[in-house]
């Protein structure tokens, strides 16, 4: 070993931030927000500290599944530009370290959630981690172009877990919140896939744009948006909805349906001519679509506290 190799190792040594990056912090922020809404809109409450610890556990559990995903997908992450700088392909964290961190944090988060809240929410969190790490990452991601549809379920569980923390159960409301994120994921992701030149093909991951073509992807975006709308609007008529949510949801769905319809009816020539402006717009509004739906549920909960929410 020379001075040069020692120097290189020292420079590449993982910092705390590299381990934190394994937890996919951006995904965690969405998880925290939706789990928080799932808790706030529930009809019963828990002590604020238990609520805080529960959200922390849900976030750490989601992060743990992210670390397990990075451990499993290190080979394809190294091939793709978007993911090549992740801690494992960048050579900062050993794959076995990511596996150990993922497993340890999975265990910690599930057991702590069980102790802090209840067995059902802990079981749902454990299933979420299993679903993302095993069913999505190991089984489906490289096997089917519908991977994004099924993988979306992992991201859809947090509000259901938040609801279970509060109520100790599963109900129509929490199932619909799950369905909202589940149905939203495909059009959101495929809108992105239409305008981003991905290298999933090089990595051997089947993506709809490459296996079934771009026309079929546009049809899928439209089809899933059609299925999404009744779910999103339907929440308005449950105990967590109300006139405010209904108004917001109708506007957001009208806009999203319009965007998806435009994307479906465009051909590649038109899209290339304006550099995929409509597809980019649909992707942008899909981000605000989910945020504003859950935000509207929060507003409804606040209005109910003053006796003016709901129906």
């Amino acid at each position, binding site marked *: 070993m020379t001075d040069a190799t020692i120097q290189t190792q020292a420079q590449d040594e993982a*910092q*705390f931030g590299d381990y934190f990056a394994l937890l996919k912090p951006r995904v965690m922020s969405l998880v925290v927000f939706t789990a928080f809404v799932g808790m706030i809109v529930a009809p019963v409450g828990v*002590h604020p*500290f*238990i609520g805080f*610890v529960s959200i922390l556990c849900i976030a750490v559990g989601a992060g743990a599944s992210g670390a397990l995903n990075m451990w499993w997908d290190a080979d394809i992450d190294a091939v793709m530009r978007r993911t090549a700088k992740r801690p494992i392909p960048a050579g900062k964290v050993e794959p076995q370290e990511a596996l150990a961190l993922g497993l340890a944090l999975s265990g910690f988060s599930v057991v*702590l959630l069980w*102790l*802090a809240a209840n067995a059902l929410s802990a079981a749902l969190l454990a299933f979420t981690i299993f679903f993302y790490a095993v069913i999505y990452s190991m089984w489906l991601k490289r096997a089917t172009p519908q991977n994004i549809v099924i993988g979306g379920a992992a991201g859809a569980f947090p509000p259901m877990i938040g609801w279970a923390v509060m109520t100790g159960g599963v109900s129509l409301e929490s199932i619909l919140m799950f369905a909202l994120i589940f149905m939203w994921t495909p059009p959101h992701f495929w809108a992105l896939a239409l305008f981003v030149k991905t290298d999933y093909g090089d990595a051997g991951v089947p993506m709809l744009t490459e296996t079934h073509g771009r026309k079929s992807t546009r049809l899928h975006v439209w089809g899933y948006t059609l299925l999404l709308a009744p779910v999103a609007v339907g929440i308005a008529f449950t105990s967590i909805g109300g006139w405010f949510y209904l108004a917001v949801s109708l506007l957001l769905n009208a806009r999203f349906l319009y965007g998806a319809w435009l994307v479906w009816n465009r051909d590649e020539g038109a899209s290339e001519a304006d550099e995929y402006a409509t597809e980019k717009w649909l992707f942008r509004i899909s981000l605000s679509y989910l945020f504003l739906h859950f935000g509207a549920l929060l507003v409804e909960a606040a209005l109910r506290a003053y006796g003016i929410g709901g129906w």
Partner: protein
Amino acid sequence: MAIKVEHEMHERRRGRNRGVGLVLLGLVGIVFGLTVVKVLNLEEIKQFERFDHVARPQIEPAAIEAAADRNAAAEEGVSE
């Protein structure tokens, strides 16, 4: 001559070790906080006695039922 205790590796890993230290401190805080909240939220503080690892025959179900019967009998005696 000063003894150099600090190795270069310690300097290099300082941020990482501090991070782990803070995470562990946070975990201790969470477990402590949960304990306080759970204990204070018990409907009847006597429930906490069940976890003190000491045999307490007076809180066994049979003893509790017997005590309840005695109280009921005593109340009936008073009302008569």
